[in-house]
């Protein structure tokens, strides 16, 4: 599989309000393959969002390189191609919808790309269908719920036909049902549309279905691996101030007590299965 995003020795520094130099990313290397579903977790200020903005050429490295489909974000002629290939969905659904009518907002991206009228209509229809919002195409965005608005924002990105979408905490401001809507949409994009996903969040349960989980702290990657590998490191995650699924925590606690179960249990069903097996053995 080819590489979708390459991050090489990335360092990013900026000046804060008091004119002090702060480094948000401290030497980071990361390759994301085409079709991969990567979840980035870490608490606020760990550099997650800064990393995301580099992948969309909204921020540029102080040192090191970021490449999207082989295009270096440093080269200005690549700018629009990168932004078209790597779409981005932000945290606040309210602040990323531009137009006053749903379908016009979805059309905003393709219009910027200078696409033919008929083609835009086709893409808008298709994008709204993918996020399951066709029924709302003539509505004003202010009448929608948070989860619906966020799906419109996603449709707006899909209509640009990106190869990769970066989600920058898209669920942080939503209620549980809105979160579910958005997460289901993200999974669908990855599985059915084969779009590479980089999903940034601090809800660990959203990481469970990913191919790879990356944990960031102080601008660096501290743990990475499959969800099972990552969530089995309960004490490290806890020391970083992050959550683990209750079931993984329980597994960890039981192992401490000498119970023989695998440490990488993630779901309720797995736990039930292992406990019952354990019991039937003796």
């Amino acid at each position, binding site marked *: 599989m080819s590489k979708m995003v390459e991050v090489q020795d990335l360092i990013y520094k900026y000046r804060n*309000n008091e004119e002090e130099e702060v480094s948000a990313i401290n030497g980071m290397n990361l390759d994301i393959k085409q079709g991969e579903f990567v979840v980035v977790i870490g608490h606020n200020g760990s550099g997650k969002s800064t990393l995301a903005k580099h992948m969309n050429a*909204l921020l*540029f490295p102080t040192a090191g390189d970021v490449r999207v489909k082989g295009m270096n974000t440093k080269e*200005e002629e690549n*700018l629009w191609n990168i932004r078209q290939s790597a779409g981005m969905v932000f945290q606040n659904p309210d602040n990323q919808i531009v137009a006053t009518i749903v379908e016009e907002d979805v059309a905003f991206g393709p219009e910027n790309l200078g696409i033919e009228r008929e083609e835009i209509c086709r893409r808008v229809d298709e994008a709204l269908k993918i996020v399951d919002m066709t029924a709302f195409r003539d509505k004003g965005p202010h009448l929608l719920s948070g989860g619906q608005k966020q799906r419109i924002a996603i449709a707006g990105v899909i209509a640009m036909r990106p190869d990769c979408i970066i989600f920058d905490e898209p669920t942080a401001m939503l209620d549980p049902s809105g979160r579910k809507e958005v997460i289901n949409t993200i999974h669908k994009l990855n599985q059915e549309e084969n779009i590479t996903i980089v999903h940034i969040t601090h809800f660990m349960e959203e990481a469970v279905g990913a191919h790879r989980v990356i944990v960031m702290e102080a601008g660096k990657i501290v743990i990475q691996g499959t969800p099972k590998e990552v969530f089995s490191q309960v004490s490290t995650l806890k020391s970083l101030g992050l959550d683990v699924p209750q079931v993984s925590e329980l597994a960890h606690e039981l192992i401490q007590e000498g119970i023989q179960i695998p440490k990488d249990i993630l779901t309720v069903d797995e736990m039930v299965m292992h406990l019952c097996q354990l019991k039937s053995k003796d």
Partner: protein
Amino acid sequence: MRQQSVQDLAILGLLTALVAVATMAITVPVPATEGFIHMGDSMIFLAAILFGKRKGAIAAGAGSALADVLLGYTHWAIPTLIIKGLMGYMVGAIANQENEEVMNTRNIASLIVGALWMVGGYFVAGGLMKGSFAISLVSVPANLIQGIGGAILFVPIGVALKRTKYFQKYILK
């Protein structure tokens, strides 16, 4: 490499929305003049004094005209666009954006000129529309209250905003 123009456009849009919202959301209707006392003028003073004549003019004109349309005073929209637009421009041009003190002479002068121009503008526009300047005179006291009220209401908010550090990176960019 952030594009200044996109940022400016977004700020202008939000300033315009702010002027419209201030005009619509906090209002005391005055039936005799077919108008209302609202926070719109304070917002215009804020936009013009803090962000300069260009942004001030556009946000003031477009925002106030939008409010007229949305409130059902459509026939006033065009006069409003012209009167408030020029008001924003004049206030922004007279005001001294560099001075740290909000209550400096030039800013006070801009408030007075802005309020008087607004009253005068509506007087003339009303006279033309209603065919008699005598009738239009009826609206002068209320507009005067509106203008002066707007200027007074501007002061504490202007002072507070100018002191807010978060804000300083936007002011007059």
